[in-house]
């Protein structure tokens, strides 16, 4: 495992993308792209084929659940971790059923994100 795993970050807030980018890059991963809505995430996934994806849920144009479904259709091995402010149980279940590997509720600490990424990439 000498090559760093690549990550695509999806969130509609610039601040959140910046925060995640900092945490992820400091912990041995490479951020290869950012998306600010579900549609962009799907397109960038197809273009960049990252090892891992972080996905917000509540976003304009296309929400996270729909994006997860689209990405999974394209690549059933996609490794997607949800990072969302919304922690309601039915929503977590919906995301996991759609194909997400893990679900983190904001605000989360850096440790938790890194753990989740490591777990998903093994």
């Amino acid at each position, binding site marked *: 495992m000498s090559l760093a795993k690549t990550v695509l970050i999806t969130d*509609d*807030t*610039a*601040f*959140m993308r*910046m925060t995640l980018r900092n945490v992820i890059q400091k912990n041995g991963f490479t951020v290869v792209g950012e998306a600010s809505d579900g549609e962009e995430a799907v397109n960038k996934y197809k273009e960049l084929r990252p090892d891992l994806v972080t996905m917000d849920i*509540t*976003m*304009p144009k296309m929400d996270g659940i729909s994006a997860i479904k689209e990405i999974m259709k394209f690549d059933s091995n996609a490794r997607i971790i949800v990072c*969302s*402010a*919304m*922690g*309601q*149980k*039915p*929503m977590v279940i919906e995301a996991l059923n759609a194909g997400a590997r893990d679900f983190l509720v*904001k*605000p989360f*600490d850096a440790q938790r994100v890194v753990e989740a990424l490591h777990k998903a990439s093994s």
Partner: protein
Amino acid sequence: MREKLDFLTELGNIGASYATTALSKMLHDAKLKLTVPQSRILSFSEAANYIPDPEEVVVCVYMRMVDIFDANIAFILPMNSALALAGFLTSEKSEHLTDLGQSALLEVGNIMLSSYLTALSMISGAKLKPAVPAIAVDMNGAIWESILADAGITDFVTVLETHFSTEQIELSGHLFFIPDHDLYEFLSSKVSGFLLEEST
């Protein structure tokens, strides 16, 4: 009526607790003070007069949910609190709200409002799906009026308001939750159910 409002106050209390817990985590576990929420049913004129200083410049993060129930939820900070919070999160020192600072506040608002809704959902069983949050920096009165107009409120309106503050940084703000009539009835029907059980 009083019992219905008391129940709403309790819901508002729990919602606000979740919201401020989330904020506390973002402020490195700062201690946040919450006032007991005020639940009020306002007439249109009372709603029009609700904001004590309508010309005060504030930052507002707002979500309007349209689903089985309609509800509006907002987080409002006076400008100096907004700058203190944005500065803390971004580590930028600025006298004006930068784009990054605004983005940070949008995210904080998003997290707090979503936490509030998660709490309400869990307790009441109401399905409350959050929407994409919106941000405005403007006069308090204009923002308040826009929220009411957007919600199509023309007559009575139920408002749950909580004030929060911390000494860790100079921060003081308000959370508002405005359920539509159907949601209000649904939430307060929980009280009727409780009362019925008591009497048998």
